[in-house]
Protein backbone atom coordinates (compact mmCIF):
# COMPACT_ATOMS: atom_id res chain seq x y z
CA UNK A 1 0.00 0.00 0.00
CA UNK A 2 1.69 3.21 -1.20
CA UNK A 3 0.51 6.51 0.18
CA UNK A 4 1.31 10.14 -0.42
CA UNK A 5 0.46 12.49 2.43
CA UNK A 6 0.29 16.27 1.99
CA UNK A 7 1.18 18.15 5.15
CA UNK A 8 1.54 21.77 6.19
CA UNK A 9 3.40 23.74 8.83
CA UNK A 10 1.00 26.10 10.62
CA UNK A 11 0.83 28.20 13.81
CA UNK A 12 -0.03 26.14 16.88
CA UNK A 13 -3.73 26.29 17.87
CA UNK A 14 -2.83 28.13 21.09
CA UNK A 15 -0.97 30.86 19.22
CA UNK A 16 -1.97 34.48 19.68
CA UNK A 17 -2.26 35.83 16.17
CA UNK A 18 -1.42 39.46 15.48
CA UNK A 19 -1.56 41.11 12.09
CA UNK A 20 1.83 42.47 10.97
CA UNK A 21 2.39 46.13 10.14
CA UNK A 22 2.08 45.43 6.39
CA UNK A 23 -1.59 44.51 6.91
CA UNK A 24 -1.09 41.43 4.74
CA UNK A 25 0.59 38.85 6.94
CA UNK A 26 0.78 37.76 10.55
CA UNK A 27 3.54 38.79 12.92
CA UNK A 28 5.51 35.56 13.43
CA UNK A 29 7.30 36.72 16.58
CA UNK A 30 6.41 34.55 19.56
CA UNK A 31 4.27 32.24 17.44
CA UNK A 32 5.00 28.54 17.83
CA UNK A 33 4.59 26.46 14.69
CA UNK A 34 3.65 22.81 14.43
CA UNK A 35 2.44 20.27 11.91
CA UNK A 36 -1.24 20.92 11.10
CA UNK A 37 -3.22 18.75 13.55
CA UNK A 38 -5.38 17.07 10.88
CA UNK A 39 -2.33 16.14 8.81
CA UNK A 40 -1.17 13.96 11.72
CA UNK A 41 -4.29 11.82 11.31
CA UNK A 42 -3.48 11.55 7.61
CA UNK A 43 0.08 10.38 8.30
CA UNK A 44 -1.08 7.91 10.95
CA UNK A 45 -3.57 6.40 8.51
CA UNK A 46 -0.87 5.95 5.87
CA UNK A 47 1.48 4.32 8.38
CA UNK A 48 -1.18 1.91 9.63
CA UNK A 49 -2.10 0.92 6.06
CA UNK A 50 1.55 0.26 5.23
CA UNK A 51 1.99 -1.77 8.40
CA UNK A 52 -1.17 -3.80 7.79
CA UNK A 53 -0.16 -4.54 4.20
CA UNK A 54 3.39 -5.37 5.22
CA UNK A 55 4.73 -3.43 2.26
CA UNK A 56 4.62 -0.02 0.65
CA UNK A 57 6.01 3.48 0.84
CA UNK A 58 4.74 6.54 2.66
CA UNK A 59 5.80 9.77 1.01
CA UNK A 60 5.13 13.14 2.66
CA UNK A 61 4.96 16.32 0.59
CA UNK A 62 4.77 19.93 1.67
CA UNK A 63 4.83 23.32 0.02
CA UNK A 64 6.43 25.98 2.15
CA UNK A 65 9.59 27.76 3.18
CA UNK A 66 12.84 26.35 4.56
CA UNK A 67 11.33 25.95 8.03
CA UNK A 68 8.87 23.38 6.62
CA UNK A 69 11.83 20.97 6.55
CA UNK A 70 11.34 20.57 10.30
CA UNK A 71 7.72 19.48 9.74
CA UNK A 72 8.85 16.92 7.17
CA UNK A 73 11.45 15.57 9.60
CA UNK A 74 8.68 15.22 12.16
CA UNK A 75 6.67 13.14 9.66
CA UNK A 76 9.73 11.00 8.88
CA UNK A 77 10.23 10.52 12.62
CA UNK A 78 6.65 9.27 12.91
CA UNK A 79 7.59 6.66 10.33
CA UNK A 80 7.17 8.08 6.81
CA UNK A 81 9.77 6.78 4.33
CA UNK A 82 10.60 9.82 2.26
CA UNK A 83 9.83 13.51 2.09
CA UNK A 84 9.54 16.19 -0.56
CA UNK A 85 9.83 19.92 0.09
CA UNK A 86 8.45 22.13 -2.65
CA UNK A 87 9.87 25.53 -1.81
CA UNK A 88 7.57 28.47 -2.46
CA UNK A 89 5.95 31.45 -0.80
CA UNK A 90 2.53 30.29 0.30
CA UNK A 91 -0.49 32.62 0.31
CA UNK A 92 -3.99 32.16 1.76
CA UNK A 93 -5.30 30.99 -1.64
CA UNK A 94 -5.68 27.21 -1.92
CA UNK A 95 -5.83 26.89 -5.70
CA UNK A 96 -2.12 27.54 -6.42
CA UNK A 97 -1.25 24.99 -3.71
CA UNK A 98 -3.61 22.41 -5.17
CA UNK A 99 -2.20 22.97 -8.67
CA UNK A 100 1.41 22.58 -7.54
CA UNK A 101 0.62 19.49 -5.46
CA UNK A 102 -1.28 17.92 -8.35
CA UNK A 103 1.64 18.59 -10.70
CA UNK A 104 4.08 16.98 -8.28
CA UNK A 105 1.88 13.97 -7.55
CA UNK A 106 0.57 13.26 -11.06
CA UNK A 107 3.43 11.01 -12.15
CA UNK A 108 4.04 9.28 -8.84
CA UNK A 109 2.53 5.85 -8.25
CA UNK A 110 0.24 5.62 -5.21
CA UNK A 111 -2.89 3.95 -3.89
CA UNK A 112 -3.99 6.51 -1.32
CA UNK A 113 -3.52 10.26 -1.45
CA UNK A 114 -4.09 11.64 2.03
CA UNK A 115 -4.69 15.14 3.36
CA UNK A 116 -5.87 16.81 6.54
CA UNK A 117 -9.43 18.08 6.24
CA UNK A 118 -8.33 21.65 6.85
CA UNK A 119 -5.21 23.72 7.41
CA UNK A 120 -5.73 25.69 10.60
CA UNK A 121 -4.11 28.84 9.21
CA UNK A 122 -6.06 29.53 6.01
CA UNK A 123 -9.01 27.36 7.17
CA UNK A 124 -9.66 26.77 3.47
CA UNK A 125 -11.00 23.19 3.56
CA UNK A 126 -10.43 23.00 -0.15
CA UNK A 127 -7.02 21.70 -1.24
CA UNK A 128 -7.92 17.96 -1.05
CA UNK A 129 -11.05 18.11 -3.22
CA UNK A 130 -9.38 20.52 -5.64
CA UNK A 131 -6.47 18.12 -6.11
CA UNK A 132 -8.88 15.21 -6.62
CA UNK A 133 -10.59 17.06 -9.47
CA UNK A 134 -7.29 18.17 -10.97
CA UNK A 135 -6.11 14.55 -11.01
CA UNK A 136 -9.49 13.06 -11.93
CA UNK A 137 -9.60 10.93 -8.79
CA UNK A 138 -12.45 9.96 -6.45
CA UNK A 139 -12.43 11.73 -3.11
CA UNK A 140 -13.94 11.72 0.37
CA UNK A 141 -13.47 14.73 2.68
CA UNK A 142 -13.85 15.12 6.47
CA UNK A 143 -13.38 11.37 6.91
CA UNK A 144 -13.75 9.82 10.38
CA UNK A 145 -13.52 6.15 9.44
CA UNK A 146 -11.98 4.25 6.58
CA UNK A 147 -12.19 0.64 5.47
CA UNK A 148 -10.25 -0.70 2.51
CA UNK A 149 -11.05 -4.11 1.13
CA UNK A 150 -9.16 -5.27 -1.94
CA UNK A 151 -8.82 -1.79 -3.33
CA UNK A 152 -12.39 -0.76 -2.52
CA UNK A 153 -12.76 2.11 -0.05
CA UNK A 154 -15.70 2.66 2.29
CA UNK A 155 -15.33 5.95 4.13
CA UNK A 156 -17.57 7.73 6.60
CA UNK A 157 -17.57 11.49 6.41
CA UNK A 158 -19.03 13.86 8.93
CA UNK A 159 -22.16 15.76 7.89
CA UNK A 160 -24.74 17.76 9.86
CA UNK A 161 -26.33 15.44 12.39
CA UNK A 162 -24.58 12.25 11.26
CA UNK A 163 -22.37 10.59 8.68
CA UNK A 164 -22.39 10.02 4.97
CA UNK A 165 -21.03 6.74 3.60
CA UNK A 166 -18.77 7.25 0.59
CA UNK A 167 -17.38 4.46 -1.58
CA UNK A 168 -14.83 4.34 -4.37
CA UNK A 169 -12.04 2.28 -5.87
CA UNK A 170 -8.37 3.10 -5.35
CA UNK A 171 -6.45 5.16 -6.22
CA UNK A 172 -8.30 7.94 -4.46
CA UNK A 173 -8.16 10.93 -2.14
CA UNK A 174 -9.05 10.99 1.55
CA UNK A 175 -9.07 14.10 3.78
CA UNK A 176 -8.78 13.17 7.47
CA UNK A 177 -10.88 14.49 10.32
CA UNK A 178 -10.17 14.04 14.03
CA UNK A 179 -11.44 10.64 15.16
CA UNK A 180 -10.01 8.72 12.19
CA UNK A 181 -7.24 7.30 14.42
CA UNK A 182 -4.86 8.23 17.25
CA UNK A 183 -1.69 9.73 15.76
CA UNK A 184 1.51 8.33 17.25
CA UNK A 185 4.27 10.44 18.73
CA UNK A 186 7.72 10.08 17.17
CA UNK A 187 9.92 7.72 19.20
CA UNK A 188 13.53 8.52 19.95
CA UNK A 189 14.52 5.78 17.53
CA UNK A 190 12.20 7.31 14.95
CA UNK A 191 13.78 10.72 15.41
CA UNK A 192 17.27 9.27 14.90
CA UNK A 193 16.19 7.27 11.86
CA UNK A 194 14.51 10.34 10.32
CA UNK A 195 17.86 12.06 9.94
CA UNK A 196 18.98 9.44 7.42
CA UNK A 197 15.78 9.27 5.37
CA UNK A 198 15.63 10.93 1.96
CA UNK A 199 14.37 14.51 1.86
CA UNK A 200 14.15 15.94 -1.63
CA UNK A 201 13.96 19.71 -2.11
CA UNK A 202 13.13 21.86 -5.09
CA UNK A 203 11.79 25.30 -5.87
CA UNK A 204 8.34 25.51 -7.42
CA UNK A 205 6.56 28.36 -9.13
CA UNK A 206 3.02 28.85 -7.84
CA UNK A 207 0.42 30.08 -10.34
CA UNK A 208 -1.59 33.18 -9.54
CA UNK A 209 -5.03 31.96 -8.52
CA UNK A 210 -6.75 35.30 -9.02
CA UNK A 211 -7.66 35.76 -5.38
CA UNK A 212 -6.00 38.97 -4.29
CA UNK A 213 -5.56 39.68 -0.59
CA UNK A 214 -6.75 43.24 0.03
CA UNK A 215 -6.20 43.34 3.74
CA UNK A 216 -5.77 41.24 6.86
CA UNK A 217 -7.24 42.60 10.08
CA UNK A 218 -7.96 41.59 13.64
CA UNK A 219 -11.35 40.13 14.54
CA UNK A 220 -14.21 42.58 15.03
CA UNK A 221 -14.25 43.59 18.68
CA UNK A 222 -16.98 42.26 20.91
CA UNK A 223 -19.18 44.55 22.96
CA UNK A 224 -17.98 45.38 26.47
CA UNK A 225 -18.72 42.33 28.63
CA UNK A 226 -21.06 42.83 31.55
CA UNK A 227 -21.75 40.73 34.64
CA UNK A 228 -25.51 40.85 35.20
CA UNK A 229 -25.33 39.42 38.69
CA UNK A 230 -24.72 36.38 40.82
CA UNK A 231 -26.64 33.12 41.06
CA UNK A 232 -30.24 32.33 40.17
CA UNK A 233 -31.48 35.74 41.38
CA UNK A 234 -29.76 37.34 38.38
CA UNK A 235 -31.81 35.30 35.90
CA UNK A 236 -34.89 37.59 35.61
CA UNK A 237 -32.63 40.57 34.87
CA UNK A 238 -30.72 38.51 32.28
CA UNK A 239 -33.94 37.50 30.54
CA UNK A 240 -35.15 41.11 30.57
CA UNK A 241 -31.90 42.24 28.89
CA UNK A 242 -32.09 39.47 26.31
CA UNK A 243 -35.65 40.49 25.46
CA UNK A 244 -35.45 44.27 25.64
CA UNK A 245 -31.82 45.26 25.12
CA UNK A 246 -30.70 42.85 22.41
CA UNK A 247 -34.09 41.38 21.44
CA UNK A 248 -32.96 37.79 20.98
CA UNK A 249 -35.74 36.16 22.98
Amino acid sequence: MNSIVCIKRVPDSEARIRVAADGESIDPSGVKFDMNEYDKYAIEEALQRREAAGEGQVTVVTIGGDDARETLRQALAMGADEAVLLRADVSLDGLPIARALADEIRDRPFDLLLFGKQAIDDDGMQVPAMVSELLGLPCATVVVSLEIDEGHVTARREIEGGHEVVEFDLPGVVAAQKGLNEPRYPSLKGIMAAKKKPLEEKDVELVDGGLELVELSGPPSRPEPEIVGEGAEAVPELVRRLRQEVKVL
Partner: protein
Amino acid sequence: MADVIAYAETRDGTLRPVARETVSAARALADELGGRVVAVALDGPGSADAARELARFGADRILTAEHPALTNYHPDAAVQAIESTAEASTAAAIVFPASARGKDLSARVAGRLNRSLATEVTELGVEDGSVVVTRPVYAGKAYAKFRFRATPALISIRPNVFPVVEQQGDGVVETLDIQPGEARTKVTGTEGGARERLDVREADIVVAGGRGLQAPENWEMMDDLVDALGPQATLGASRAVVDAGWRPHGEQVGQTGKVVSPSLYFAIGISGAIQHLAGMQTANVIVAVNKDPEAPIFGVANYGIVGDAFEVVPRLTEEIRTLRDSGG
Protein backbone atom coordinates in the same frame (compact mmCIF):
# COMPACT_ATOMS: atom_id res chain seq x y z
CA MET B 1 -24.43 38.90 -18.30
CA ALA B 2 -23.24 38.95 -14.72
CA ASP B 3 -25.36 36.12 -13.39
CA VAL B 4 -24.91 34.64 -9.95
CA ILE B 5 -25.42 30.92 -9.46
CA ALA B 6 -26.68 29.73 -6.08
CA TYR B 7 -26.33 26.10 -5.05
CA ALA B 8 -29.55 25.51 -3.13
CA GLU B 9 -29.02 22.61 -0.79
CA THR B 10 -31.94 20.28 -0.21
CA ARG B 11 -32.10 17.04 1.69
CA ASP B 12 -34.88 14.49 1.40
CA GLY B 13 -36.84 16.84 -0.82
CA THR B 14 -36.86 19.81 1.54
CA LEU B 15 -34.76 22.97 1.49
CA ARG B 16 -32.02 23.12 4.08
CA PRO B 17 -32.33 26.29 6.20
CA VAL B 18 -29.10 27.57 4.67
CA ALA B 19 -30.54 27.31 1.13
CA ARG B 20 -32.65 30.42 1.72
CA GLU B 21 -29.59 32.26 3.00
CA THR B 22 -27.58 31.18 -0.04
CA VAL B 23 -30.20 32.39 -2.51
CA SER B 24 -30.75 35.64 -0.58
CA ALA B 25 -26.99 36.33 -0.56
CA ALA B 26 -26.79 35.53 -4.28
CA ARG B 27 -29.70 37.94 -4.89
CA ALA B 28 -27.95 40.78 -3.08
CA LEU B 29 -24.78 40.14 -5.09
CA ALA B 30 -26.68 39.90 -8.39
CA ASP B 31 -28.41 43.21 -7.67
CA GLU B 32 -25.03 44.88 -7.25
CA LEU B 33 -23.71 43.27 -10.43
CA GLY B 34 -26.88 43.85 -12.44
CA GLY B 35 -27.44 40.17 -13.17
CA ARG B 36 -29.87 37.35 -12.57
CA VAL B 37 -29.92 34.67 -9.90
CA VAL B 38 -29.77 31.12 -11.16
CA ALA B 39 -30.57 28.62 -8.40
CA VAL B 40 -29.51 25.02 -8.87
CA ALA B 41 -31.32 22.34 -6.84
CA LEU B 42 -30.42 18.69 -7.32
CA ASP B 43 -32.30 16.00 -5.47
CA GLY B 44 -34.40 12.88 -5.83
CA PRO B 45 -37.91 12.62 -7.32
CA GLY B 46 -40.46 14.90 -5.67
CA SER B 47 -38.05 17.66 -4.78
CA ALA B 48 -39.07 20.26 -7.37
CA ASP B 49 -41.78 21.76 -5.16
CA ALA B 50 -39.22 22.71 -2.57
CA ALA B 51 -37.03 24.23 -5.28
CA ARG B 52 -39.93 26.34 -6.60
CA GLU B 53 -40.05 28.09 -3.24
CA LEU B 54 -36.68 29.70 -4.04
CA ALA B 55 -38.43 32.30 -6.21
CA ARG B 56 -39.57 33.96 -2.98
CA PHE B 57 -35.96 34.65 -2.05
CA GLY B 58 -35.05 36.16 -5.38
CA ALA B 59 -34.28 33.29 -7.75
CA ASP B 60 -34.93 34.25 -11.39
CA ARG B 61 -34.19 30.85 -12.85
CA ILE B 62 -34.56 27.66 -10.90
CA LEU B 63 -32.76 24.69 -12.40
CA THR B 64 -33.94 21.43 -10.95
CA ALA B 65 -33.00 17.86 -11.54
CA GLU B 66 -35.05 15.09 -10.02
CA HIS B 67 -33.39 11.75 -10.36
CA PRO B 68 -33.27 8.73 -8.08
CA ALA B 69 -29.47 8.82 -8.29
CA LEU B 70 -29.51 12.35 -6.80
CA THR B 71 -31.38 11.40 -3.61
CA ASN B 72 -28.02 11.05 -1.92
CA TYR B 73 -25.32 13.64 -2.53
CA HIS B 74 -23.82 12.87 -5.94
CA PRO B 75 -20.59 14.87 -6.19
CA ASP B 76 -19.73 13.98 -9.77
CA ALA B 77 -23.19 14.87 -11.13
CA ALA B 78 -23.32 18.04 -9.03
CA VAL B 79 -19.93 19.23 -10.30
CA GLN B 80 -21.07 18.51 -13.85
CA ALA B 81 -24.36 20.38 -13.41
CA ILE B 82 -22.72 23.44 -11.93
CA GLU B 83 -19.93 23.46 -14.47
CA SER B 84 -22.35 23.40 -17.40
CA THR B 85 -24.60 26.02 -15.79
CA ALA B 86 -21.61 28.29 -15.21
CA GLU B 87 -20.47 27.93 -18.80
CA ALA B 88 -23.92 28.53 -20.26
CA SER B 89 -24.63 31.66 -18.22
CA THR B 90 -21.09 33.10 -18.03
CA ALA B 91 -21.55 33.44 -14.30
CA ALA B 92 -19.81 36.17 -12.33
CA ALA B 93 -20.04 34.22 -9.10
CA ILE B 94 -21.18 30.91 -7.69
CA VAL B 95 -22.44 30.93 -4.11
CA PHE B 96 -22.51 27.75 -2.00
CA PRO B 97 -23.47 27.24 1.62
CA ALA B 98 -20.48 26.41 3.85
CA SER B 99 -22.28 23.25 4.95
CA ALA B 100 -20.70 19.79 4.93
CA ARG B 101 -21.93 19.23 1.40
CA GLY B 102 -21.41 22.81 0.22
CA LYS B 103 -17.78 22.83 1.28
CA ASP B 104 -17.06 19.49 -0.38
CA LEU B 105 -18.81 20.45 -3.60
CA SER B 106 -17.45 24.00 -3.85
CA ALA B 107 -13.86 22.75 -3.62
CA ARG B 108 -14.50 20.15 -6.33
CA VAL B 109 -16.04 22.79 -8.60
CA ALA B 110 -13.06 25.07 -7.92
CA GLY B 111 -10.67 22.31 -9.01
CA ARG B 112 -12.74 21.56 -12.09
CA LEU B 113 -13.11 25.20 -13.16
CA ASN B 114 -9.57 26.07 -12.07
CA ARG B 115 -10.83 29.03 -10.06
CA SER B 116 -10.10 30.21 -6.54
CA LEU B 117 -12.57 29.61 -3.74
CA ALA B 118 -13.23 31.64 -0.58
CA THR B 119 -14.60 29.43 2.21
CA GLU B 120 -16.87 30.42 5.13
CA VAL B 121 -17.35 33.95 3.86
CA THR B 122 -18.97 36.37 6.33
CA GLU B 123 -19.16 39.49 4.11
CA LEU B 124 -19.87 39.69 0.42
CA GLY B 125 -20.01 42.67 -1.94
CA VAL B 126 -18.84 44.33 -5.14
CA GLU B 127 -16.11 46.97 -5.42
CA ASP B 128 -15.09 48.50 -8.76
CA GLY B 129 -16.91 45.74 -10.56
CA SER B 130 -15.16 42.84 -8.80
CA VAL B 131 -16.53 40.57 -6.13
CA VAL B 132 -14.95 41.17 -2.72
CA VAL B 133 -15.33 38.94 0.31
CA THR B 134 -14.23 38.85 3.92
CA ARG B 135 -13.60 35.60 5.70
CA PRO B 136 -12.14 34.49 9.02
CA VAL B 137 -8.69 32.89 8.97
CA TYR B 138 -6.53 31.48 11.79
CA ALA B 139 -9.69 30.17 13.51
CA GLY B 140 -11.25 33.63 13.55
CA LYS B 141 -8.22 35.26 15.16
CA ALA B 142 -7.91 37.35 11.97
CA TYR B 143 -10.13 38.32 9.05
CA ALA B 144 -8.96 38.45 5.45
CA LYS B 145 -10.54 40.59 2.76
CA PHE B 146 -10.05 39.35 -0.81
CA ARG B 147 -10.82 40.64 -4.27
CA PHE B 148 -11.58 38.15 -7.02
CA ARG B 149 -9.69 39.03 -10.17
CA ALA B 150 -11.12 36.13 -12.19
CA THR B 151 -14.68 34.96 -12.78
CA PRO B 152 -16.62 33.10 -11.68
CA ALA B 153 -15.82 33.98 -8.08
CA LEU B 154 -16.41 30.88 -5.98
CA ILE B 155 -17.76 31.50 -2.51
CA SER B 156 -19.17 29.47 0.35
CA ILE B 157 -21.11 31.47 2.93
CA ARG B 158 -21.03 30.74 6.63
CA PRO B 159 -24.45 29.50 7.82
CA ASN B 160 -26.50 31.85 10.01
CA VAL B 161 -24.60 34.97 8.97
CA PHE B 162 -26.42 36.23 5.87
CA PRO B 163 -30.03 37.35 6.30
CA VAL B 164 -32.91 35.61 4.58
CA VAL B 165 -34.66 38.27 2.52
CA GLU B 166 -38.06 37.71 0.95
CA GLN B 167 -37.88 39.27 -2.48
CA GLN B 168 -39.76 37.92 -5.48
CA GLY B 169 -37.62 36.70 -8.38
CA ASP B 170 -38.86 35.65 -11.82
CA GLY B 171 -38.87 32.06 -10.66
CA VAL B 172 -38.75 30.37 -14.06
CA VAL B 173 -38.36 26.65 -13.38
CA GLU B 174 -36.29 24.63 -15.85
CA THR B 175 -35.34 21.00 -15.73
CA LEU B 176 -31.69 20.09 -16.07
CA ASP B 177 -31.11 17.01 -18.13
CA ILE B 178 -28.79 15.02 -15.93
CA GLN B 179 -27.88 11.45 -16.74
CA PRO B 180 -25.69 10.49 -13.83
CA GLY B 181 -23.31 7.97 -15.32
CA GLU B 182 -20.98 5.67 -13.43
CA ALA B 183 -19.87 7.81 -10.47
CA ARG B 184 -16.22 7.96 -9.45
CA THR B 185 -17.22 8.85 -5.91
CA LYS B 186 -20.40 7.16 -4.72
CA VAL B 187 -22.37 8.25 -1.68
CA THR B 188 -24.18 5.08 -0.70
CA GLY B 189 -26.06 6.22 2.36
CA THR B 190 -26.31 8.35 5.46
CA GLU B 191 -26.25 7.34 9.09
CA GLY B 192 -27.78 9.00 12.10
CA GLY B 193 -29.82 11.30 9.92
CA ALA B 194 -32.91 10.91 12.06
CA ARG B 195 -32.03 13.58 14.54
CA GLU B 196 -34.59 15.46 16.55
CA ARG B 197 -32.69 18.70 16.85
CA LEU B 198 -31.08 21.19 14.52
CA ASP B 199 -27.39 20.89 13.84
CA VAL B 200 -25.36 23.23 16.01
CA ARG B 201 -24.36 25.25 12.92
CA GLU B 202 -27.93 25.82 11.81
CA ALA B 203 -29.58 26.67 15.09
CA ASP B 204 -30.50 30.21 16.01
CA ILE B 205 -29.87 29.56 19.71
CA VAL B 206 -27.12 27.29 21.01
CA VAL B 207 -27.04 26.05 24.61
CA ALA B 208 -23.49 24.78 25.10
CA GLY B 209 -22.27 22.89 28.12
CA GLY B 210 -18.78 22.14 29.43
CA ARG B 211 -16.98 20.24 32.13
CA GLY B 212 -18.56 22.46 34.75
CA LEU B 213 -21.71 20.35 34.36
CA GLN B 214 -19.78 17.52 35.98
CA ALA B 215 -21.55 14.42 34.61
CA PRO B 216 -23.39 13.36 31.44
CA GLU B 217 -26.70 12.84 33.26
CA ASN B 218 -26.75 16.54 34.12
CA TRP B 219 -27.59 17.29 30.50
CA GLU B 220 -31.20 16.62 31.40
CA MET B 221 -31.51 20.19 32.63
CA MET B 222 -29.77 21.40 29.46
CA ASP B 223 -32.34 19.50 27.40
CA ASP B 224 -35.11 21.19 29.35
CA LEU B 225 -33.65 24.60 28.61
CA VAL B 226 -33.39 23.82 24.90
CA ASP B 227 -36.99 22.58 24.89
CA ALA B 228 -38.15 25.77 26.59
CA LEU B 229 -36.29 27.90 24.02
CA GLY B 230 -38.11 26.15 21.18
CA PRO B 231 -37.36 24.42 17.87
CA GLN B 232 -34.76 26.99 16.79
CA ALA B 233 -32.55 26.02 19.74
CA THR B 234 -30.07 23.17 20.02
CA LEU B 235 -27.28 21.78 22.19
CA GLY B 236 -23.55 22.45 21.86
CA ALA B 237 -20.53 21.19 23.81
CA SER B 238 -16.91 21.91 24.67
CA ARG B 239 -14.19 19.51 23.63
CA ALA B 240 -13.60 18.46 27.22
CA VAL B 241 -17.05 16.87 27.45
CA VAL B 242 -16.84 15.37 23.96
CA ASP B 243 -13.47 13.80 24.72
CA ALA B 244 -14.93 12.47 27.97
CA GLY B 245 -17.61 10.73 25.93
CA TRP B 246 -20.44 12.69 27.57
CA ARG B 247 -21.57 14.31 24.33
CA PRO B 248 -21.31 13.38 20.63
CA HIS B 249 -18.59 14.96 18.50
CA GLY B 250 -21.24 16.55 16.28
CA GLU B 251 -22.05 18.96 19.11
CA GLN B 252 -18.48 20.16 19.63
CA VAL B 253 -17.94 23.86 19.15
CA GLY B 254 -14.47 25.24 18.55
CA GLN B 255 -11.36 25.04 16.47
CA THR B 256 -11.53 21.26 16.10
CA GLY B 257 -15.32 21.20 16.24
CA LYS B 258 -17.81 23.41 14.51
CA VAL B 259 -17.80 27.14 14.06
CA VAL B 260 -21.16 28.62 14.94
CA SER B 261 -22.74 32.05 14.56
CA PRO B 262 -26.13 31.85 16.27
CA SER B 263 -28.01 34.91 17.41
CA LEU B 264 -27.74 33.68 20.99
CA TYR B 265 -25.06 31.43 22.52
CA PHE B 266 -25.18 30.16 26.10
CA ALA B 267 -21.82 28.94 27.47
CA ILE B 268 -22.58 26.99 30.61
CA GLY B 269 -19.74 25.63 32.73
CA ILE B 270 -17.30 26.36 29.91
CA SER B 271 -14.03 28.09 30.83
CA GLY B 272 -13.49 29.80 27.46
CA ALA B 273 -10.23 28.29 26.19
CA ILE B 274 -8.91 29.98 23.05
CA GLN B 275 -9.82 26.91 20.93
CA HIS B 276 -13.41 27.09 22.17
CA LEU B 277 -13.66 30.84 21.55
CA ALA B 278 -12.52 30.19 17.97
CA GLY B 279 -15.82 28.41 17.40
CA MET B 280 -18.31 30.87 18.86
CA GLN B 281 -16.98 34.38 19.07
CA THR B 282 -18.98 35.49 16.04
CA ALA B 283 -22.24 34.71 17.84
CA ASN B 284 -24.43 37.77 17.98
CA VAL B 285 -25.06 37.62 21.73
CA ILE B 286 -23.06 35.47 24.16
CA VAL B 287 -24.27 34.61 27.66
CA ALA B 288 -21.86 32.93 30.10
CA VAL B 289 -22.75 31.09 33.27
CA ASN B 290 -19.72 30.11 35.33
CA LYS B 291 -18.97 29.92 39.01
CA ASP B 292 -15.50 31.34 38.53
CA PRO B 293 -15.64 35.14 38.05
CA GLU B 294 -12.14 34.97 36.51
CA ALA B 295 -13.13 32.49 33.77
CA PRO B 296 -11.95 33.81 30.37
CA ILE B 297 -15.40 33.18 28.88
CA PHE B 298 -16.62 36.33 30.66
CA GLY B 299 -14.17 38.31 28.51
CA VAL B 300 -16.22 37.63 25.36
CA ALA B 301 -19.70 37.37 26.86
CA ASN B 302 -22.20 40.20 26.40
CA TYR B 303 -23.84 39.10 29.64
CA GLY B 304 -22.49 36.96 32.42
CA ILE B 305 -23.91 35.37 35.52
CA VAL B 306 -21.41 34.29 38.14
CA GLY B 307 -22.98 31.28 39.78
CA ASP B 308 -23.65 27.58 39.97
CA ALA B 309 -25.09 26.15 36.76
CA PHE B 310 -27.25 23.79 38.78
CA GLU B 311 -29.11 26.78 40.23
CA VAL B 312 -29.00 29.14 37.25
CA VAL B 313 -30.03 26.77 34.45
CA PRO B 314 -33.32 25.49 35.99
CA ARG B 315 -34.28 29.06 36.89
CA LEU B 316 -33.53 30.19 33.35
CA THR B 317 -35.71 27.40 31.97
CA GLU B 318 -38.52 28.45 34.30
CA GLU B 319 -38.31 32.13 33.31
CA ILE B 320 -38.26 31.30 29.63
CA ARG B 321 -41.24 28.97 29.97
CA THR B 322 -43.16 31.72 31.72
CA LEU B 323 -42.21 34.11 28.95
CA ARG B 324 -43.26 31.71 26.19
CA ASP B 325 -46.53 30.90 28.00
CA SER B 326 -47.36 34.58 28.18
CA GLY B 327 -46.87 34.73 24.40
CA GLY B 328 -43.44 36.41 24.48
